[in-house]
């Protein structure tokens, strides 16, 4: 390239400055936007990763319901993939600063250089003393906290912190909290507002609240990459495997001091009990011994007393009155002493009476002898008489018998029956009677009868004699008997007398014996007397011994009594002690029992292993970056293409304008190549500048802009925006293609012609009849100038389509921008007004009993209008090779979700019933897993025991999260599991305000079994924020589209005008006022605009749908409809832009110099 050409190029550039600039501008916008949107997502993640890396954000976090200790840390450290286990303290409490109350989490300032989760100082300085603290930077900014103010904490446990007032000396960002959300807590209303960093030593807890873990195998991995997730998951599983052990360890550790204490106490107790019991036993033994001794003593005494009593012949003493007994003894002794002589006298008397008795006895015996002899004799006599009588009797009987026979014979003779039952005499009498008559007839009979009569008489006489004899005998007997009886009587009397006498004597002896105090076993009187006499002697003897004995008894009694008293005292004391000891021992035992029970009932703590995803905002950040990236896939490309297209036409036109020059150069002998260079250089220059500026905007400006817009909601450091070549390649290539290469091609094309023809003005495009002319109906009604416009439009097809496409492209981009805005913004109202209708969500993990209590409480409250309890756990839902997390929601049999969440079809609005036929899933999930009604999907969650296939019975409208709804019946038919409710939706009356809801939440949190209370308004707010972030992106898109539209339209118009300078000049010459000439031009523009809007609408509709689907995050479903407002707004903007351009055209037009434009080519 020689110097002249170079000069030419530079001058050309200066002349066509506006063209050059607009070209460069278009490319800048196109490239900048393209790169910017593409890299922002990655830059965001890179920034975050740097932040996490520099501030050592943990990879895993272990927390337990009972804290952690060094042993726990030890076991964790044994996992090989773990780099460090860092223990930390954290405490949630109410706080007050500058009169404002809020809930804060106080964390320990890391002490070592390489601690985990280091805060990033934002303003102020690091605390240097325990009285200073760092406060949450985000909170400080939004709540206007100033350095130097004091924060006061009110922890529930007074001893947890060594001090509670701190001066704010600086603000900090924490890599754990990158968003506004500070998480949930179990105190107060359940929501944390800010965090605080205080000196580690202020914490006086004897356990760690958190164990933060960094891993070796994650070094160098981006926190948002799947490799990282996998690496962490692998270790997480290992740690979770350990949780059982650690939990146990922890429990033991916690229990340990108590166990030791318990053991000690138990030992002590047992020892003491043993001691006490021993003591008591000893005492008892002593007492027993004493008692025994006493008893023995008493026995002895009583024995002695008894002896004495016996000796004195007294009654059995009553054993309970020894004194009395003694007295009685003494009395008796005296009596005896007194009575002894009488006694002796008595004995003598007895002796004498005995003598008498013996005499009497002898008499009696004699008498008895006599009696016996008489008796014998009488007996003999009587016997003899008796014999005689017996003989008579016998005779008599014989006679009777003969009589009887005779009578019978008589009767027989008479031929009559003999009478029965009569005595023979009677029979005879009868016979006489009966037979008498007969006898008169029969001499035999008469004789017989007479015989019989004689017999009878004889019999009678005999009988008489007998009877007399009997009488004699009887009399004699009686007499004898009488005499004997008398004798006997006498004897008896004598015997009786003797007996009495003897008895009396015995009595007397007995009495004497009694008086002597001896028993007489003998009956023999002399022995008795002897005994009596011996007894008396004894008595005498005994008296003396008795005397001494009694004295002994007396003294013994004294001893015994004192001993008894002592013993009694001792016993009482013993009883007392025993009682006390028993009481104390029972108490002690009970306490131990209690303690034991408590210790045994201590549950091992629950351990939770959390990853970074559980940090509020961590995943959201990723999703936001992904969203931008998703948009960056398609949108900027279109953008860029529009820009490229415009460049193309621009360059082409420019080349065409310079035909003459090119012809000249060619005629001068410059090669085609050399000729083309000029235009290529122009193009290249513009594109290089465009590239350069585009890079600056794309790599630096735009990402920072987008990112900083997000930073109102994220608390992260400044964006790192490195230069990455890969993103640049496509746009750079396209840019060069569309400019430089186009220039070359256009030149080539143009230079095909010979120089001569080039140097002539180009044959103007032939006019042609347009199709519309063949429709006379319309054509004739068009005004003249309108016909001109129509022909003009259609004359240059390329220009026509270029313009239409340019406008359509911009319109389409605008529609996409606005439409996307609507698609995303309307999710929150639609979801939270129409679909998720509940007001509060309660997490529950208590017993059935506690559930009932809670239910009852909710029923009773005025500020609760209804509640629904159900089972909800997340599980992996998979089908057709894809899987996504979903909330498995199981409703109890008769539960109705109405009022809490609505299940309806999106397109028709009809409600979708939840039946026992299958599960109802949300539309987005159905899309992600490619499911229709009737298909099957798998649910899996190993730690909850969910593993089954469910059938899809319905698909419902839902925009946030994924759900698999089932009735309990259906769920149990596919999984044998207990679906006890762990989540509850609660509705409050419409008038309830935020304060009221807070109060309710606080109340509910205090209930047993309630683990968390989340307000729907909070969830909604979170999503609002999330979507709000997105507004930024939308705004940028819309602005960029608008800017592009403006530039494109401007460019097109410029092209338009430059091509038609002569035409416009002619009009001006003809006398067209500027306005008229303007109308001539802008009429075309308006038609182009209208056509472009129609095409653009269509294009935008497609692009919008496409972008919505690609920019969507899995967890969310964007509203698919393109709303009218978006279209209308886009149209308005396009119209406004066109109007602006037209105005600019006017001014350009005005400046057209007729003379210059119509300059003849000489």
């Amino acid at each position, binding site marked *: 390239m020689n110097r002249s050409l170079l000069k030419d190029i530079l001058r050309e550039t200066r002349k066509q400055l506006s063209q050059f600039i607009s070209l460069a501008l278009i490319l800048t916008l196109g490239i900048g936007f393209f790169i910017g949107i593409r890299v922002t997502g990655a830059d965001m993640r890179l920034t975050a990763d740097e932040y996490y890396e520099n501030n050592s954000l943990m990879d895993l976090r272990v927390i337990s319901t009972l804290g952690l200790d060094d042993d726990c840390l030890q076991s964790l450290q044994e996992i090989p993939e773990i780099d460090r286990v860092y223990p930390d303290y954290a405490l949630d409490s109410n706080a007050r600063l500058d009169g404002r109350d809020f809930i804060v989490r106080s964390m320990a300032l890391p002490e070592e250089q390489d601690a985990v989760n280091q805060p990033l100082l934002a303003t102020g300085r690091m605390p240097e003393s325990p009285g200073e603290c760092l406060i949450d930077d985000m909170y400080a900014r939004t709540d206007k906290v100033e350095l130097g103010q004091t924060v006061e904490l009110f922890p529930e446990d007074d001893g947890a912190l060594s001090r509670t007032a701190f001066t704010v000396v600086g603000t900090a960002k924490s890599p754990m909290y990158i968003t506004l959300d500070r998480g949930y807590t179990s105190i107060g209303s359940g929501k944390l507002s800010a965090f605080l960093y205080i000196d580690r030593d202020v914490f006086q807890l004897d356990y760690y609240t958190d164990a933060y873990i960094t891993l070796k195998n994650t070094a160098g991995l981006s926190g948002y990459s799947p490799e990282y997730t996998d690496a962490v998951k692998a270790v997480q599983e290992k740690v979770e495997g350990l949780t059982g052990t650690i939990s146990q360890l922890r429990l033991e550790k916690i229990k340990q001091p108590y166990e030791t204490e318990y053991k000690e106490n138990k030992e002590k107790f047992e020892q003491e009990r043993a001691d006490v019991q021993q003591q008591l036993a000893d005492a008892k033994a002593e007492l027993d011994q004493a008692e025994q001794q006493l008893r023995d003593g008493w026995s002895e005494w009583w024995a002695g007393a008894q002896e004495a009593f016996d000796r004195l012949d007294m009654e059995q003493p009553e054993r309970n009155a020894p004194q009395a007994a003694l007295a009685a003894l003494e009395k008796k002794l005296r009596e005896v002493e007194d009575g002894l002589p009488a006694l002796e006298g008595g004995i003598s008397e007895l002796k004498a009476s005995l003598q008498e008795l013996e005499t009497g006895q002898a008499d009696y015996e004699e008498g008895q002898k006599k009696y016996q002899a008489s008796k014998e004799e009488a007996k003999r006599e009587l016997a003899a008489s008796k014999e005689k009588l017996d003989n008579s009797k016998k005779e008599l009987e014989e006679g009777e018998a003969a009589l009887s026979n005779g009578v019978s014979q008589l009767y027989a003779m008479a031929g009559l029956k003999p009478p029965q039952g009569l005595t023979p005499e009677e029979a005879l009498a009868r016979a006489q009677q009966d037979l008498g008559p007969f006898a008169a007839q029969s001499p035999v009979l008469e004789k017989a009868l007479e015989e019989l009569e004689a017999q009878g008489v004889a019999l009678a006489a005999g009988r008489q004699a007998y009877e007399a004899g009997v009488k004699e005998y009887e009399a004699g007997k009686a007499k004898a008997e009488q005499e004997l009886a008398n004798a006997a009587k006498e004897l008896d009397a004598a015997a009786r007398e003797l007996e009495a006498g003897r008895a009396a004597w015995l009595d007397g002896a007995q009495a004497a014996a009694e008086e002597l105090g001896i028993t007489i076993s003998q009956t023999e009187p002399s022995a008795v007397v002897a005994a009596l006499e011996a007894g008396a002697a004894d008595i005498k003897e005994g008296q003396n011994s008795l005397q001494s004995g009694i004295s002994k008894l007396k003294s013994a009694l004294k001893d015994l009594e004192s001993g008894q008293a002592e013993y009694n005292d001792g016993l009482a004391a013993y009883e007392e002690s025993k009682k006390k000891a028993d009481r104390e021992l029972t108490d002690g035992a009970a306490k131990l029992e209690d303690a034991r029970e408590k210790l045994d009932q201590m549950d091992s703590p629950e351990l939770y292993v959390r990853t970074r995803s559980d940090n509020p905002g961590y995943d959201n950040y990723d999703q936001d970056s992904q969203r931008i990236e998703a948009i960056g896939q398609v949108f900027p490309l279109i953008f860029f293409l529009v820009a490229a297209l415009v460049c193309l036409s621009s360059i082409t036109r420019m080349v065409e304008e310079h035909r003459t020059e090119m012809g000249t150069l060619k005629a001068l002998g410059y090669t085609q190549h050399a000729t083309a260079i000029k235009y290529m250089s122009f193009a290249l220059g513009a594109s290089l500048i465009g590239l350069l500026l585009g890079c600056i905007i794309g790599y630096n400006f735009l990402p920072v802009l987008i990112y900083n817009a997000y930073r109102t909601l994220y608390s992260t450091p400044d964006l790192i925006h490195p230069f990455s070549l890969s993103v640049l390649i496509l746009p750079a290539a396209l840019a060069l293609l569309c400019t430089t290469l186009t220039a070359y091609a256009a030149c080539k094309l143009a230079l095909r012609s010979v120089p001569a023809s080039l140097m002539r*003005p180009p*044959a*103007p*495009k*032939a*006019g*042609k009849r347009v199709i519309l002319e063949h429709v006379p109906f319309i054509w004739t009604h068009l005004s*003249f*100038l309108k*016909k*001109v416009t129509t*022909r*003009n439009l259609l*004359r240059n097809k390329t220009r026509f389509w270029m313009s239409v496409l340019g406008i359509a492209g911009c319109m389409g981009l605008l529609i996409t921008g606005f439409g996307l805005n609507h698609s995303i913004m309307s999710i929150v109202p639609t979801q939270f007004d129409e679909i998720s209708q509940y007001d509060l969500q309660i997490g529950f993990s208590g017993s059935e009993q506690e559930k009932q209590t809670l239910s009852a409480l909710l029923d009773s409250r005025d500020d609760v209008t209804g509640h629904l309890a159900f089972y909800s756990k997340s599980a992996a839902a998979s089908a057709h090779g894809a899987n996504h997390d979903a909330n498995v929601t199981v409703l109890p049999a008769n539960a109705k979700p109405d009022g809490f969440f609505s299940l309806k079809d999106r397109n028709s609005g009809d409600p979708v019933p939840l039946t026992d036929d299958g599960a109802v899933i949300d539309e987005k999930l159905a899309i992600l897993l490619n499911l229709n009604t009737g298909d099957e999907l798998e649910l899996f969650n190993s730690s909850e025991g969910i593993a089954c296939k469910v059938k899809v019975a319905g698909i419902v409208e839902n925009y946030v999260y994924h759900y698999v709804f089932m009735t309990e019946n259906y769920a149990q038919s596919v999984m044998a599991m207990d679906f006890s409710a762990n989540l509850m939706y609660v509705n409050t009356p419409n008038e309830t305000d935020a304060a009221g809801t807070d109060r309710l939440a606080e109340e509910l949190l205090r209930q047993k079994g309630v683990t968390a209370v989340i307000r729907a308004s909070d969830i909604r707010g979170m999503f609002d924020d999330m979507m709000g972030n997105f507004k930024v992106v939308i705004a940028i898109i819309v602005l960029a589209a608008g800017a592009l539209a403006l530039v494109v339209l401007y460019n097109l118009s410029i092209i338009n005008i430059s091509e038609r300078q*002569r*035409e416009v*000049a*002619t*009009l*001006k*010459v*003809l*006398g*067209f*006022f*500027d306005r*008229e000439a303007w109308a001539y031009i802008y009429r075309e523009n308006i038609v182009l605009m209208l056509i472009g809007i129609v095409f653009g609408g269509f294009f935008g509709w497609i692009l919008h749908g496409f972008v919505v689907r690609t920019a969507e995050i899995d967890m969310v479903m964007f509203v698919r409809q393109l709303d009218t407002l978006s279209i209308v707004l886009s149209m308005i903007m396009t119209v406004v832009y066109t109007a602006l351009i037209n105005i600019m055209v006017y001014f350009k037009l005005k400046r057209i110099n*007729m*003379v210059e434009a*119509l300059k*003849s*080519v*000489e």
Partner: protein
Amino acid sequence: MPFIELKDITKVYHMGEVEIKAADGVTLSVERGEFAVVVGPSGAGKTTVLNILGGMDNCTSGSIVVDGRDISRYTQKQLTGYRRTDIGFVFQFYNLIQNLTALENVELAAQICQNSRPADEVLRQVGLGERLFNFPSQLSGGEQQRVAIARALAKNPKLLLCDEPTGALDYSTGKSILKLLQDTCRKEGMTVVLITHNQAITPMADRIITLRNGKVEQMRRNETPADVAAIEW
């Protein structure tokens, strides 16, 4: 009172430090109904004068009075109005609107005038009765120029300005165009000012103005204008 009177017209172009005097004190006059020809070598300032006269350009100083009106002080708007109603312009390269037929091209001009002549009539007048519905690309050079003339005439101007109208035409066609112009001038009584560097056609003019270096070298009246047909060159 001459129909057109230019007094001491200067037109100075400033290109940075350089000053170019396209017209340097031009004074001339043309009577009504005259056929005036302005001749001079290239760069003499002919087109400049014509442009100024036609209200397409302003003069730096001097005065122009056309039909009693001083147009040198006219505003842009007034000039446009002046061009609209009083001037008919014919260019060397016709400058027809390609998208319009001959008839429409003339109608375009006629539309904006109050007292315009019917387009088809004028076209017939110029001999293009058969060519009313042809596009310029379908017309020969001469025909195109006729259309241009028709366009200029349709406006019923006071003044017809022609800038080398035969420059792009061959001899015979050019001659016929010149004849048309002459006829129009004589028949309609239209004042025609024609620029050319062809001295040969000066005999047809009523007035001959010679420009050189931006000044009027000579202005003389030709008492016996010849018919164009009679002139040979």
